[in-house]
């Protein structure tokens, strides 16, 4: 195995691990849930993506075969992280009353936050 590939794999593993650690420290240290959402959904997803790319490079240069599994895991995680964050934020907004009182007014006059609106009469379910 050549030295450049080894350095690249090691660097990707170290960078990914630091991102994982930063995300989890943010999850513990930040003051409320809306701030805490940022750390795992951005930093941890980036970190695990970096580790998966490192694993892909490792099997490409050491075992000499290209594997697509890591790519599918990376794409899946990058696609699902925003959906998860949206659901957690929505659950948080609906379960805490004091946060609902402190929400800023919506940009459109006369229209409230869509998630708190009652369903329309003509809505087809």
């Amino acid at each position, binding site marked *: 195995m050549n030295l450049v590939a080894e350095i690249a794999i*090691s660097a990707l593993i170290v960078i990914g691990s630091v991102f994982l650690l930063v995300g989890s420290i943010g999850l513990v240290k930040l003051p409320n849930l809306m701030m*805490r959402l940022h750390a*795992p959904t951005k930093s941890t*997803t980036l970190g695990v993506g970096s580790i998966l790319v490192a694993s892909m490079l490792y*099997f490409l240069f050491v075992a000499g075969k290209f594997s697509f*599994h890591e790519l599918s*895991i990376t794409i*899946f995680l990058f696609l699902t992280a925003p959906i998860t964050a949206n659901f957690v934020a929505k659950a948080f907004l*609906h379960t805490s009353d004091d946060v609902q009182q402190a929400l800023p007014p919506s940009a459109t006059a006369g229209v409230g936050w869509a998630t708190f609106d009652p369903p329309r009469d003509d809505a087809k379910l």
Partner: protein
Amino acid sequence: MIGYALAFGFACASIALLLNLWRLSIGPTIADRVLAVDTMVINTIALIMLYGVYESTTMHFEGALLFAMVGFVSTVAYCKFILRGDIIE
């Protein structure tokens, strides 16, 4: 050199898992706990991939992929349950 990087990676992922466990135990609201479990799933995927590099085997990929899918589905299902009191209406 990859061995030292892997040791560092194992240490970081393990400390991250412990920090997530801390947030899971103290989390003031239920959404905090759901978020902590979701982060634990992602850290576990990273740990599985690092172990695959350490053992130099491609056997663990399917496990990691299944972990990613089950983690996502369980997080969404739990949030749906908090929101609506039901998962499939």
